[in-house]
Structure formats: structure tokens, C-alpha cells
């Protein structure tokens, strides 16, 4: 009996000691603590490996979903495909969840992704140009009679963990109960199944969801948010190239199809907001 106690105690002490040691000597911020400026630019890596790995949260339109054949379709896959074509490389779509985008970029698992440009995020990743202007809004059940945001101050709001819908809801509705899921569609279902009073997510996503599901009503936009192409922090060569790509894709059409606006119209099912405007 005695030796059992001793060995257990020893193991417990070892556990605590190793954890403490790891914590003390691990660089802060995990992988981001290591100098993020890679000696080789992502652009070079993409060209050398002949693969563009684009991280996409696959969960809802217009961003991306899987169709009946299991293929990934949507606005972002189309833009990514055009980017790969311009680079003359293969496109590899890496399914990420909204919270994973930044760690994946930092670790070099993906070459690019998309996300709202926030200054907090800009400390960990780089943004190359705006590809769409969206924003955050909330959707409720039409039958609930909720017409504005005052009615939601103490209710239950569903959101996607770490996405701007979550951040906006947490910031503006501190007294509400926030349910966090890893996919937009689950958050929307929470409202449809009356497990949440409202869902906080991108305007484009909720607008399309309301079109498919008449039970939903979309409230006026809370914020206007430019979404940028997310890239590894400090990778200026890659940021420049992506910037030129976006200008070409949405405007000049010299090296790409120049059909950016049509692609946006196709998936947003409406006129896209201007990419540059005065706030």
C-alpha cells in the first residue's frame, strides 16, 4: 500500500513539475512567439510546391459549403481558384474553422485565408487587401416579434466562436447569454430550433439564410466590416502579390478574368457593397 502512495505522489509531482517547466520555458504566444518572418516568402513556397493552400471555413453560404457530391463550392472557393490559376498552381482547399485560421497561418499550414480586418488580428496575421465588405448583423425568428436590438439585451445569442459575430455580440451585449459554436449553420439552427433568440453573424451569411428559410428575419446591420485576405504576418512579398491580384480580379482584368464583381453578385445574390468607401 505504501509504495503505491509514494509512486502516485511522485507521478503527481512530476506532472506539476513538467507542466511548470514547460510553461516557464515555452515562448509566449505559442508558435507566434517564434519570429514569424519566414526566410522564404509564402509566394515563393506556393510557386515552388505548385500548390496554393487556401484555408476556408466550410459551413455556410456565401463563403463555402459542400454540395451533394462533397465538392466545396462558394464565393471563396471561386476566388481561390482564380488566384491559383493566376499563379499557375494547383488549389488545395484546407477546411478550417473560424478559430483555426490564424494558428494555421502562423504555422504555415495554409498560405491564405479570409477574415474581417481587425487590429487585434493584425497583430498576429497580415491582411492583403479587401475582397468584400460585409458586416455583422443579427437574425431572429420572424414570429418572435423582436424588431430591434433593445429587445436582445438580456436574451440568448448564438455565434461562431472567435468570429466577428461573436466579438461584436460579446462587446455590445455583455448581459446577454452567448452560445458559441464552431460553425455558422449550427448557430443559425439554434435560433430556428428556438434554443437561442438571435444569431450574430455576417450580413451576407444571414441574408442568404433568411432567403432560404422564411422563418428568419434579419435585423439592421450592426457594423460594416471589410474582409481581407489573411496571410502570414510580415510577408510583404506575398501581401503585395495578393494586392495586385485583387486589383486585377475586381478591376483591370489584365492577368485574370477581371470578373470579381460578377462572382460577388452570383453568390451574394445582390449588389455587393463597394470595396472602398467613406465610412
Amino acid at each position: 500500500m505504501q509504495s503505491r502512495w509514494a509512486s502516485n505522489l511522485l507521478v503527481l509531482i512530476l506532472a506539476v513539475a513538467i507542466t511548470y517547466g514547460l510553461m516557464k520555458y515555452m515562448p509566449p504566444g505559442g508558435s507566434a512567439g517564434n519570429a514569424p518572418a519566414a526566410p522564404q516568402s509564402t509566394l515563393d513556397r506556393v510557386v515552388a510546391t505548385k500548390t496554393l493552400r487556401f484555408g476556408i471555413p466550410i459551413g455556410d453560404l456565401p463563403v463555402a459549403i459542400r454540395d451533394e457530391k462533397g465538392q466545396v463550392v462558394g464565393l471563396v472557393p471561386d476566388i481561390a481558384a482564380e488566384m491559383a490559376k493566376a499563379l499557375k498552381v494547383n488549389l488545395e482547399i484546407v477546411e478550417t474553422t473560424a478559430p483555426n485560421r490564424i494558428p494555421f497561418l502562423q504555422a504555415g499550414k495554409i498560405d491564405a485565408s479570409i477574415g474581417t480586418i481587425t487590429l487585434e488580428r493584425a497583430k498576429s496575421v497580415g491582411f492583403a487587401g479587401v475582397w468584400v465588405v460585409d458586416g455583422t448583423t443579427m437574425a431572429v425568428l420572424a414570429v418572435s416579434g423582436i424588431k430591434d436590438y433593445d429587445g436582445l439585451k438580456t436574451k440568448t445569442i448564438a455565434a461562431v466562436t472567435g468570429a466577428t459575430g461573436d466579438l461584436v455580440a460579446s462587446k455590445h451585449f455583455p448581459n446577454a447569454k452567448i452560445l458559441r459554436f464552431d460553425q455558422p449553420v449550427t448557430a443559425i439552427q439554434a435560433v430556428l430550433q428556438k434554443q437561442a433568440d438571435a444569431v450574430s453573424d455576417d450580413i451576407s451569411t444571414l441574408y442568404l439564410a433568411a432567403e432560404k428559410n422564411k422563418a428568419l428575419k434579419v435585423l439592421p446591420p450592426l457594423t460594416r466590416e471589410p474582409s481581407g485576405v489573411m496571410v502570414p504576418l510580415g510577408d510583404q512579398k506575398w501581401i503585395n502579390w495578393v494586392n495586385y491580384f485583387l486589383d486585377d480580379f475586381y478591376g483591370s482584368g489584365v492577368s485574370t478574368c477581371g470578373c470579381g464583381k460578377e462572382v460577388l453578385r452570383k453568390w451574394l445574390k445582390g449588389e455587393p457593397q463597394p470595396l472602398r468607401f467613406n465610412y
Partner: protein
Amino acid sequence: MDWALIVANLPLLLRGTLTTIELALVAFVSGTALGLAITAGRTLGGRDANLLLGFVVDVVRGSPLLVQLLVIYLGASAIGLSLGPFTAAVLGLSINAAAYLSEIFRGGIGSVTHGQTEAGLSIGLTPTQVLGEVVLPQSLPVIVPAMMGFFIGLLKDTSLAYVLGLLELTRVGKNVMDRTFQPFEMLLVVAAIYFLLCFPLAQLVRVTDARMRARGLAQAHV
């Protein structure tokens, strides 16, 4: 209950099922190999190896599999590795399996009377030979049913790879039901598929256990 939509999506579900089975088999085989190595290390390696390996096993058994999968998938990047969801799932499930299986092996070894070990050593066999050729074979009646039972658990645990986005059965089912808005029917189908995979195996375990026990008892008389 619109079964037509379910039927239309069966090919996708079947592909997810194949991924599930593949994941479970690969993890089981690697877990067994690694588990045997751990058990051998703990039995033959001396006190320090036993303590160290025991610690690792205890850490793996003392944390949730879901967290282990996330640690491997997200943490591998920190040491410069880029793992896909399948690879990360295989690694995570294998390590988890190795920890639990090594305990099963140790239990089985412990069930063989010590006299066997003494006899083996006294006729000049090395400890390794004693373990591999005398003790382990006699522990099979205890180990095999336990391993089979563990495999069933592993089949179910592959569903946790859901959080890595891997297109195993549960994730495929969720994707489909998100598209077709039929959560109840789809989840019943998914549950049914798991049941069809696991239940026959569970019955097989019962039969094997009974047979092994009969044989095992016979051996103890020797």
C-alpha cells in the same frame, strides 16, 4: 420524414463510414504495436523506464481524447509539422490506444501465475524470451477479448475526429443534415450505421470471451 433525401445522400455517408473504419483499423494496429513496446519497456526496462512510461500512460489516460486530438492537430504546427486532419486523428487515436492497450497487456501478463516466469528463467530463458514466448501467449485468453472490446470503443471514438473537420461518418452526417435540414432522420441513420458496425463485433467479443475462458481455464491446469 423524407427518406428520399437520405437515400440520395447514402453514397456520401458510405464514404464517411469507410473513413471511420480505415481510421479505426490503422489506429488499432499502430496502437497495438506501440502499446506492446510500452508494455515491454515497462516490464523489462527497469524501474526508471517503468516510472517514466507509466507517467506518460497516466497522462494520456488522464486527459480527454478530444483534447489530445486538438493538441496534436493544433500543436504539431508549433514544432513545425503540418498535419492534415486524418494524420492528426490517426496519431492521436494511436497514442491513446497505445496507452489503454498497454494497460490491457499488463493486466493480461499479471493474470499469468508468476510460477511461469520463474520456471522460464530457471531453465535459462532471457527475460525477453520469457515475456514473449511464455507469459504473453498464456495471457491471450484475457487480452484478446479485452482488445476486441477496445476496438469497438475505438470505432466509436473515431467520431471525435469530428472536431478536426475530418470527413468521418459523424462529420459527413452533420454536413448533410445542415444542407437538408433533417437532423433527426440523419442522426438516426448515422447512429444505425455505427450500431451495425459495433453490435456484431460486441456479440463476437462475447462468444470469443466465453471460448477463450474455457480454453484459458484448461491451460491453468498445466
